[in-house]
C-alpha cells in the first residue's frame, strides 16, 4: 500500500448526511471479481441528477470528499472504498463514519477525517473555490484562508497509513501467539476448534 502523508487538492463539497453504501456503489456493480473500474458506478443515483457535484468539472480529479454525518452506513461492501479510490478520492472528511466503512477505508489507504459539523460547514464553503490540505503527520486540515482544524486518528492506523503497512503481514508475524490460542481453545473449548470437520 502507498504511504499516506499529505493530501492537498480540491475537495468535492457533497455534504449529504447518512450517505449509505448503496448510494456510494449500487449493488448491480458488485458483480465483479476485481477491485478496479468501480468509479464508473460510484454515486450513480446522485450523478443521474443534473448539476451534481461529482460531474462538475470544477472538481475533476479532486482527491478529497466532504460529507455529512454517518457516512458509509449500510452494507459491508468494500467496493464502496474501491469505488472512491477509482474516482481518485483518497480522503473523506465528515462529522462521523459508519464503523465498517471506516475500517474498509483505512485498509485501502483512504484517510477518514472526523471534524465537527461547524468546521465541515466552513470547509464546504471553502471547497467551492479553493483547495483543502490534510496533513496526516500533524493531524490538521488547513485552507488557504488560515483555517486550521485538528483531528484525531487512531495511533495504530496512523502508523500503518504513514508507512503503507500491510495488516495481514503484521498479524502473520504474530503466528506464535495465535498458535498458543488455538492450543488453549482445543483443550478448553474443543467444540469450537472443530468447525466443519465435526464427526456426526
Amino acid at each position, binding site marked *: 500500500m502507498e504511504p499516506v502523508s499529505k493530501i492537498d487538492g480540491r475537495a468535492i463539497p457533497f455534504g449529504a448526511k447518512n450517505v449509505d453504501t448503496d448510494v456510494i456503489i449500487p449493488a448491480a456493480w458488485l458483480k465483479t*471479481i476485481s477491485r478496479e473500474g468501480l468509479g464508473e458506478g460510484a454515486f450513480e443515483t446522485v450523478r443521474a441528477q443534473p448539476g451534481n457535484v461529482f460531474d462538475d468539472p470544477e472538481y475533476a480529479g479532486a482527491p478529497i470528499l466532504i460529507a455529512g454525518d454517518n457516512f458509509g452506513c449500510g*452494507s459491508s461492501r468494500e467496493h464502496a472504498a474501491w469505488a472512491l479510490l477509482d474516482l481518485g478520492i483518497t480522503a473523506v472528511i465528515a462529522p462521523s463514519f459508519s464503523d465498517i466503512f471506516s475500517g474498509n477505508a483505512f*485498509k485501502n489507504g483512504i484517510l477518514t477525517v472526523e471534524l465537527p459539523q461547524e468546521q465541515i460547514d466552513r470547509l464546504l464553503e471553502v471547497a467551492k473555490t479553493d483547495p483543502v490540505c490534510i496533513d496526516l503527520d500533524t493531524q490538521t486540515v488547513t485552507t488557504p484562508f488560515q483555517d486550521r482544524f485538528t483531528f484525531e486518528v487512531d495511533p495504530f492506523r496512523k502508523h500503518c497509513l504513514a508507512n503503507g503497512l500491510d495488516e495481514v503481514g503484521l498479524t502473520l508475524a504474530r503466528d506464535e501467539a*495465535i498458535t498458543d490460542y488455538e492450543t488453549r481453545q482445543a483443550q478448553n473449548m474443543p467444540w*469450537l476448534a472443530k468447525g466443519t470437520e465435526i464427526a456426526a
Partner: protein
Amino acid sequence: MASRPRTLYEKIWDAHVVETRDDGTALIFIDRHLVHEVTSPQAFEALRISGRKVRRPDLTLAVPDHNLPTTARRDANGNRIPIADPQSAAQLAALESNAPQFGIRYIDATAAEQGIVHVVGPEQGFSLPGSTIVCGDSHTAAHGGVGALAFGIGTSEVEHVLATQTLLLKQSKTMQIAVTGQLGPGVTSKDLILHIIGVVGTAGGTGHVIEYRGEVFETMSIESRLTVCNMSIEAGARAGLIAPDATTFAYLKDRPLSPKGDDWDRAVEWWKTLHTDEGAQFDATVRIDAADVEPTVTWGTSPEDTIAIGGAVPDPTSFADPNKQQAAQKSLDYMGLSAGQNMTDVEVQNIFIGSCTNSRIEDLRAAAEVLKGRKAADNIKWAIVVPGSGLVKQQAEAEGLDRIFIEAGLEWREPGCSACLGMNPDKVPAGERCASTSNRNFVGRQGPGARTHLMSPAMAAAAAVTGRLTDVRTL
C-alpha cells in the same frame, strides 16, 4: 474469575483475546467464518498473489447466495441450468473454484443445504453461542440470535481472517435495549426491531454492540431472535446479542455441525454462563415498552423512517432537525408519498417475502397463515416467496405452505438473497412499490427507482391480499 461483573459481550470478547496491544486494541480469534461469492473473490485473489494460505479452512464455510437467480437450478433432466448474467456466473464460478483450492467446505448452489449464509449458519449448527462469527456481509449480526458475537466485515478483513483466523479490533461500547412487557397479538419480532430502529436511529448504535434484554426476547423463538439481531446494523451497531438459553440449546441440539456427545455437555455448561452479570454496566441504555409496538412499516428511504401501520406519512417540517427535514422531503419525493397520507391508503404492486431477515420456516408459516384461502389482489403484479435455504424450502413443502402461496397467486422460488438487494434477476421496477420483508429501504436497493416498504411477513402477506399496506389484525 471473581472479578467485576461483566456484560455478555465482554465475556465473549475476553474468551477470544489472542493478545492485547499497548494501544488497547486486541487480536481477536475468529471461530467461524462464512464466505459468499460477492465479497470474497478479491480476498482469495490477494492470498494467491501473496502466496498465503487459509490458516483454518475447517473454521470456514462457503455458500453462494447473493447472485443466484431464484428460478429453477436444474432442468427436467437434472442438468444444471447455466446462469444467464455473465458477471454473476463468473462470480459464482470464482467461489466454486476458490473454496476447494483453499480447502474450504463449499455448499453447492443445487444442494439442499444451500441458502442465505445467515440462514445456513444457525441451521447447520455452525453458528454457536459464545463464538465469534464473521462474514463479508453486514447482516452477519443475525447470528447474535444464538448468542454469538457476529459482525460484518469488508473484503480486506475477509482476507485477514482467511490468512490469520483473527481480526485486530478495538473493544466496542455496549448498549442495552431493555424491553419491558410482551408484544400484543399480531405484533411480531420484525415490528419490534423496526420500532427499535425508529427510536435509536440509523447511527444511534455506531461504535456499540447491542444486547437485547427483557422477557420478550426470552420467550421468542430462535427464528425471531435472528430477525431482531439481523437488523442491529440498521441501528448502526455492528453486532447485536441475545443471551443463549434453553431455547437456544434445544434449537442447536443435533444440528449437523453442532457439538456432539461430551463436547455438547461441556459446551452447554459454558453457554449457561453466557449472560450479563447482575450489576454489569452498559455504556448506553434504551428503554422500550413492548405495549407501544404496533405492526410497523417504513415510509421513507432509511430504516429509521418507521411508523405504526395506523399512522400517516409524517410532515417533513415536523422534524426538529433541519437536515432531517430535508432528508424526509427527499425521501417522500423518491417514495411518491405526501405528508398526511394514511399508510393504509398506500397501494403496492409487488410483494417480496424472503431475505436473511425473514425467510425462515416461522416467517413462511406466518405469511401462509394470512394467505390461506385468500388471493392476491388484482393490482399485485409480482409477488414472490423465497425460502432462506433448501432445507427451509423442504420443510415448507412438507407442511403444504408452498401450495398455499401458489394458490394465492404468489410464486414459490429457490433459496437466495433475491429481491433484497437488486443484484440478481429479482428486482422491483422503477417507480413501483414493494411490500418487503427485507432489511433495507435505501434508494435503489431493490432496483433503480424501486420504492420499498419494510414490514413483517404477516404484514407483507396482508398487503398481497388487499393490494395496499394493511394492518394484518384487521383482515
